[in-house]
């Protein structure tokens, strides 16, 4: 925790934004370790993949547009500081009304958690309880989350568009000339994609699931882009197909819910999908995680395409 605080403080004081991005990568890793220590492996997984991988890449892409060094602040930061302190104090005051952290008599521990822990093995039969809660007991929330991710991708598309950058010649980047890198990355990408598939389908048994798998899938394509250039990666996966994939993911998820409705059960009640409720739950969770994975992958890659297509407007000397 001390590392966290120190890193955050240095990141605030440092003016070279490049260094700040790297410090944020370190910060994100430390948070992931904290989550692992609290026994939340799925969250740590997602935090490591998103925070240290994709966020770093996107922030570096933004740095190309904004310039490397932070400009001097001209306004006095006293008023924003006051607002932040007042808001923080209000939040802390509101928290005193809630049960203490880890209180065994809190409602969530006496009503919800035992119900999930006792009934999940018999009702759903999936060993990883996080997945069963996420995809089945709280399926509505997960649908909402996926829609939020999709909306974010939509907003980026509306604001930035996925124009091709000026660098249209395939295979030309700064580090694309390093032959060792090209050869090794070509072999590695297939393993990373395989690992992404493993994470997707193994989410029922260990850490993993749709969100993490989507991020790892996107990481493979991001590596390809970094080494081989934008033109190559847009040939492999054109931006039009990416938009279609994002929609497909949402449709799979919502479609599963509608299918359950058509079979006579409430929306997103997976017991309707097979001859036996437990098998129905398994099938439902599989389809839903697939939808989530596809959506997350395509939205992350959409944002990456959008950022990589931008160039800083040329300033006349």
């Amino acid at each position, binding site marked *: 925790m001390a590392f966290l605080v120190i890193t955050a403080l240095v990141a605030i004081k440092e003016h070279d934004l490049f260094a700040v991005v790297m410090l944020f990568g370190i910060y994100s890793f430390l948070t992931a370790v904290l989550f692992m220590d609290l026994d939340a492996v799925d969250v740590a997984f997602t935090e490591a993949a998103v925070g240290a991988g994709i966020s770093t890449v996107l922030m570096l892409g933004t740095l190309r547009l904004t310039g490397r060094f932070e400009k001097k602040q001209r306004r006095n930061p006293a008023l924003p500081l006051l607002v932040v302190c007042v808001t923080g104090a209000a939040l802390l005051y509101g928290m005193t009304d809630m049960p203490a952290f880890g209180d065994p008599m809190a409602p969530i521990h006496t009503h919800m958690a035992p119900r999930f822990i006792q009934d999940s093995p018999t009702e759903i039969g999936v060993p990883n309880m996080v997945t069963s809660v996420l995809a089945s007991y709280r399926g509505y929330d997960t649908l909402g989350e996926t829609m939020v991710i999709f909306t974010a991708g939509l907003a980026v598309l509306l604001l930035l568009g996925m124009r091709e950058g000026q660098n249209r010649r395939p295979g030309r980047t*700064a*580090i694309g000339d*390093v032959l*060792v*890198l090209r050869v*090794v*990355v070509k072999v*590695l990408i297939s*393993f990373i994609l395989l690992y992404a598939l493993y994470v997707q389908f193994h989410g029922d048994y260990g850490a993993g699931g749709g969100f993490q798998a989507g991020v790892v899938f996107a990481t493979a394509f991001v590596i390809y882009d970094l080494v081989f250039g934008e033109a190559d990666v847009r040939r492999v996966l054109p931006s039009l197909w990416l938009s279609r994939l994002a929609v497909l993911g949402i449709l799979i998820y919502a479609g599963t819910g509608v299918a359950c409705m058509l079979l006579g059960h409430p929306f997103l009640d997976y017991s309707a999908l097979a001859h036996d409720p437990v098998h129905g739950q398994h099938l439902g969770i599989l389809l839903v995680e697939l939808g989530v994975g596809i959506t997350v992958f395509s939205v992350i890659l959409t944002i990456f395409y959008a950022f990589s297509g931008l160039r800083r407007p040329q300033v006349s000397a």
Partner: protein
Amino acid sequence: MLVEILSWFCFLAGGFLCISGSVGILRLPDFFSRLHASSVTETLATPLLLTGVMLQTGWSLDTLKLMMVWLFVLSTNPTATHAMVKAALHDGQTPLEFDQPKGPQTDGNESTEEETSTS
């Protein structure tokens, strides 16, 4: 019992090499020499420590997955090092060179020195 002792040795050696690599990153004078020090950590200390954990977990699925981490680390970290060196050379950084000390403390057969060009 032998496996225990072997894994303890791996942990000790790996830990020591890890620290020595990081001390090298901190104390060596030039980027290229620091790179050399960090490559000790990533190609020797990491596989040793991973081998230690593999010996502890015995024959199980975890060992296979750790073997995959082993292979991954061994193939990507030297590649990244190579790319970093290429990028630095491309950018114009040059390695630091020291001139050899001339005088009575060296013996006479070190006559072929490079030119003095400290950066």
